């Protein structure tokens, strides 16, 4: 659609601007403020320059957390995106079963995040959980509070459980929009299943898939509540992701300066990656003629 130039449209944006300025810009300025100042309490602050940034950049703790965070996001994206597409391809197209699948699949998405954590905390416990008990009965040594590998597997399986449906539902919406004529043409050309997917379905769902990847990347990169409830960041620091580390630093130890410097770099990393995804997404949108 070709849009008209209208500078007065700014007035329609104004309410959003005021609200977001209040709830985003003011707090963000506070963070910037803390990141360049030091304090000995009593509300006395003095200029510290880029000291905190240097300290954080030199701190092994932040790099470790960042490494764990990137590993986690990469693993869950590598599992959830293909699995979500696979599930979407197998979903019933219409009727009662389609509705039932949609409702049941949306269920994990609407559970408060700490309850998701609680569900898996209970489910994985060796003494009272179905999963933990079954694994123990099979002779597998599984204890997510003591074994880092088990903790990682639990957190990843939990995230797959929690969010794969989002990818599947997005891909499903994309698949629903493909006209039947495309499939008929493929049939005439005697295209096999893989070719239909590769040349018809995949290009058509690319747009929504980018939304899925963008959302999943952002949300997995800021994950806090679920792993915190299940493992508390442990054992040791094995599942201490960026947000968990940040909250520990800011609200636990009240190290405002380093935490603020950490926050800003954390935010910038997310912005950078999201900007790349966003650019790809808008280009796809344009190509499809929106």
């Amino acid at each position, binding site marked *: *659609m070709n849009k008209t130039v209208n500078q007065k449209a700014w007035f329609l944006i104004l309410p959003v601007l005021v609200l*977001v300025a209040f709830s985003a810009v003011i707090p963000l300025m506070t963070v910037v403020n803390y990141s360049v100042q030091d304090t000995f309490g009593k509300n006395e602050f003095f200029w510290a320059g880029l000291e905190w940034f240097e300290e954080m950049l030199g701190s092994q703790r932040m790099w470790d957390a960042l490494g764990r965070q990137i590993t986690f996001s990469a693993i869950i994206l590598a599992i959830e995106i293909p699995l979500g597409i696979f599930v979407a391809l197998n979903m019933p197209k219409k009727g009662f079963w389609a509705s039932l699948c949609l409702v049941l699949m949306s*269920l994990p998405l*609407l559970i408060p995040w*700490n309850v998701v954590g609680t569900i898996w905390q209970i489910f994985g416990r060796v003494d009272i959980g179905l999963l933990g008990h079954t694994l123990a009965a099979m002779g597998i040594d599984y204890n997510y509070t003591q074994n880092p590998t088990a903790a990682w597997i639990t957190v990843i399986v939990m995230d797959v459980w929690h969010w794969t449906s989002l990818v599947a539902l997005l891909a499903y*919406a994309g698949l629903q929009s493909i006209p039947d004529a495309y499939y008929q043409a493929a049939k005439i050309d005697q295209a096999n299943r893989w070719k239909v997917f590769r040349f018809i379905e995949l290009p058509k769902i690319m747009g929504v898939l980018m939304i899925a990847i963008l959302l999943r990347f952002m949300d997995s990169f800021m994950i806090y509540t679920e792993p915190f409830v299940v493992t508390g960041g442990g054992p040791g620091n094995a599942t201490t992701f*960026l947000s968990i580390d940040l909250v520990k630093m800011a609200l636990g130890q009240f190290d405002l300066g380093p935490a603020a410097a950490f926050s800003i770099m954390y935010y910038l990393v*997310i912005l950078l990656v999201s900007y790349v995804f966003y650019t790809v997404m808008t280009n796809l949108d344009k190509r499809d003629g929106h």
Partner: protein
Amino acid sequence: MSDRAKKSGMALPKINGSAVVMGLYLLFLLLPIYWLLTMSLKTNSEILNSFTLWPQNLTFDNYMTILTDPSWYTGYLNSMAYVVMNMVISLAVALPAAYAFSRYTFLGDKHLFFWLLTNRMAPPAVFALPFFQLYSSIGLFDTHIAVALAHALFNVPLAVWILEGFMRGVPKEIDETAYIDGYSFPRFFIRIFTPLVASGIGVTAFFLFMFSWVELLLSRTLTSVNAKPIAATMTRTVGAAGIDWGVLAAAGILTIIPGALVIYFVRNYIAKGFALGRV
């Protein structure tokens, strides 16, 4: 003929294959929830002392504990209050903005749109402490409106994003015809345009509900007693006397119910809604 036979012969197992895949996937999704449900219907001694696949002595005591104790059920009311406030605020500011983005070009529109989206990308952990200080300093700490405004941080950009997708699908000729017919902008917007994007508004409301209802970090940081959300109340079961597993499970099940109801009402729009109107 043989070709057709081969094709129909292939079609049959494929349908079964899909059913098996979906069956396994749904089993994977529902098993942990089922486990929580059975636990909420067991007594603590049954949970801890014997491993049973379903409750041997069915009990509703855990639910009674929650529904009769004000410190429990006010948690639900608090959560509901700020979620609804957030939905109203977010929709009210996002509707005109989304209209502007979907219809007009203006100075800085693309940058503005991305800047809005960046707020959806802001980690709540970054904002927890500044929010606490901001709302404390203006005397809104521990109120529902504070949580609603804090959640607007990520919900308003999301609402603008989804609504813009839906509004792009409404032909522009409708606007022009209405203006020629003498409608003023507010009247046109409320009487004609809003009903046209009603399904988009419904889907947006669903997403706003979803992200506000599930969030805990900010809502916990900004409240202490009067506006404490149910999700934060749940951490209370971890007491000195150990964890009250039954009550914890029952509270968990009760937090799933509002979401399940909302899904039931929007089930026909879910697929389109998840594509944010872009299909």
